[in-house]
């Protein structure tokens, strides 16, 4: 009897945990709004008070990519001209996601050598939270673009630039808070990050070209053997 009871308890505990997890997730999503309006406190608490979750970060990144694709496809042709017949959705997403990840990686690799406090997880989370204004502004802007005329385009363009400036500012403060750097050091490390990213890309290219060379070597050797045996 006690066994059955404890099993029931466990189930209820698990479901409680699950609902607690869900509550934490929605909380951390809502916390995104706090971060973008109070960046200095927001990013500090995001990491150090564990107010953010990775799940929320993933969500923001995904939303960002989806927003980007929707923008390309649904914005009125008066404001952006996209050769829709040549667009590959996954290519578009990858062309944003890969540089994003590589820059995060490069930033972590560089700052970790120069007493940056952030772990890779923290950097990634902060950067994802910095993308929130892009989603918040550009998603409604897709709709707005379809009720504006060409002459009223300045409204659209101002909001567009505003969202991007906001994101860049957030990313900057985010890095500052995550690594506990001053602004000057952050600027320097942004430049260093770009160099690091280039190095990573170079290494990746070298690696893959070597890999393909090696593969082709074994393939040709196999062919040679097969021909000799016949």
């Amino acid at each position, binding site marked *: 009897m006690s066994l059955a009871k404890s099993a029931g308890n466990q189930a209820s505990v698990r479901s409680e945990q699950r609902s607690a997890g869900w509550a934490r997730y929605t909380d951390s999503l809502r916390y995104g709004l706090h971060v973008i309006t109070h960046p200095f406190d927001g990013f500090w608490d995001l990491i150090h008070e564990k107010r953010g979750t990775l799940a929320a970060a993933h969500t923001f990144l995904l939303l960002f990519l989806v927003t980007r694709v929707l923008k390309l496809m649904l914005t009125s*042709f*008066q404001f952006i*001209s996209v*050769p829709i017949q040549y667009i590959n959705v996954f290519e578009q997403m990858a062309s944003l996601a890969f540089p994003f990840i590589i820059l995060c990686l490069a930033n972590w690799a560089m700052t970790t050598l120069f007493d940056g406090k952030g772990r890779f997880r923290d950097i990634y989370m902060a950067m994802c939270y910095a993308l929130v204004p892009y989603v918040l502004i550009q998603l409604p802007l897709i709709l707005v673009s379809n*009720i504006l*005329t*060409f*002459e009223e385009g300045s409204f659209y363009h101002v909001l567009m630039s505003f969202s991007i400036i906001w994101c860049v500012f957030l990313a900057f403060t985010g890095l500052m808070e995550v690594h506990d750097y001053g602004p000057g050091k952050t600027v320097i490390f942004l430049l260093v990050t770009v160099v690091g990213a280039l190095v990573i890309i170079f290494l990746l290219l070298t690696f893959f070209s070597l890999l393909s060379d090696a593969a082709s070597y074994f393939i040709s050797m196999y062919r040679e053997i097969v021909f000799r045996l016949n």
Partner: protein
Amino acid sequence: MKKLTGKMLILLLACLVLLQTAGLAEDGFSTSYTYTYDYWEDVQESPDAYRVATVIDSMSLGLENLENIRINKAQSLFVRNQFIYVCDTNNNRILEIERKGNSFSLSRVIREIQGAEINTFSTPYDVFVDEDYNLYVADYGNQRVVMMDRDLNWIRNYTKPSDATFDQSLNFLPKKIVADVAGRVYALCQNVNKGLVKYEADGTFSGFIGANTVSISMGEYIWKRYFQTKEQRAQTENFVPTEYENIYIDDEGFIYATNIVFSEYDLKSDAAKPIRRLNSLGTDILIKNDRFPPIGDLFWVEQGAEGNGPSKFVDITVMKNDIYVALDRTRGRLFGYDSQGVLLWAFGTKGNVEGAFTGAVSLEHMGYDLLVLDQMENSITVFQTTEYGQTIYDATETYLDGKYEESADLWRGVMRMNANYPLAFRGIGRAVLRQDQYEEAMDYFKLAHDRENYGRAFKLYRKEWVERNIWWMLLLAALLLLVPLGIGKIRKMKGEVNAHELGKIRR
């Protein structure tokens, strides 16, 4: 049955092979005769706008029988009403050809001027005829522009200006000439880079107009000014403006000038300006309202081998409604643009067949017909519009005349013949917009990628839509405002009642 399908298959394959050979070449450049560029700057094949009507050469003019001197390196062509004037440069003569219907016959051979000191021509490069049939000849070898009346009586010489602004060490070598209605003569001279030499009607020199501006980048300037030695600077080319290649004067008295000396990388940014329309001050007032400036082909293999490089316009002619056609030497093509600088069509190629050129040098128009002079073939190719080409012109004209419905119908005809023609969609859209059919107009402008006009149509459509739907929108807004207000009021009243009741109890 099986045999039949087999045969059909073979036929189909043959068709496919044929289709493959026409169309795009492997490098993506068009090999079709007539084409346009779409919004994405891709080549779109189009029906022929022009077809060869006839070819005029020494044989067809009967020059064999007459002195037996064939046309030799003719350099220029001029049309005045039904007369065609050919500058037969190496034979030192001007041929006057008269057109009657579709037949062309030699009416005069001009070799001598009556009453002039030097009464023959020496390598004449260009000829111009004004409305009274006075002839102007750019007499290159004699270093003069000579004017004579219709009966070849000498009137005047325009010679080297004695003015200090003209470099006196230079010879006066006029290559192209035009004259305006007031009798002012503009001469394009070899080695003169200050612009066109301008003479008043009485033959006095009155200055230069329309000099090419020197374009130089900041980096280039710093490099040349501060880092090169004197010797290096002497060896590299100087910052001097370049000469024009050809000039044409339109009905309104504006001079169209073409330029072939430029960097091929300056074309798309519109720094090179291969076609210019000069006003009396010499400033370029050509209208460019398309995505790309009028530069001919939008893609080319880098300069080098024969047939590579950007389009180089050696001549230009302006038809009715400011439609202008430029002749490209590089690939022997003609490019037609409307008054807004939008490409109407492009056609032509290099070669020895009809409708192809080996050394096209001069272009003229007769109504809507085009005449191209080839200096290698020594022949004049006469092009006539096809139904397609003519419909485009008619549609433009009727629109400018204010007959919008008629224009829309004509543009619909163009659309039926070529569904890849943005101008047709725009034309229909504009006409439909005038008839207050906003939604339909929006569809057409969207197809034409015409943002400005789409915005205009959309603005009107939006206004109409709001006017139609304002009632329920207001109602909705009112509801959204009133309902919470009402609820709030009721709550307040309830609270007051409760408070009153409570007060009663306390008392």
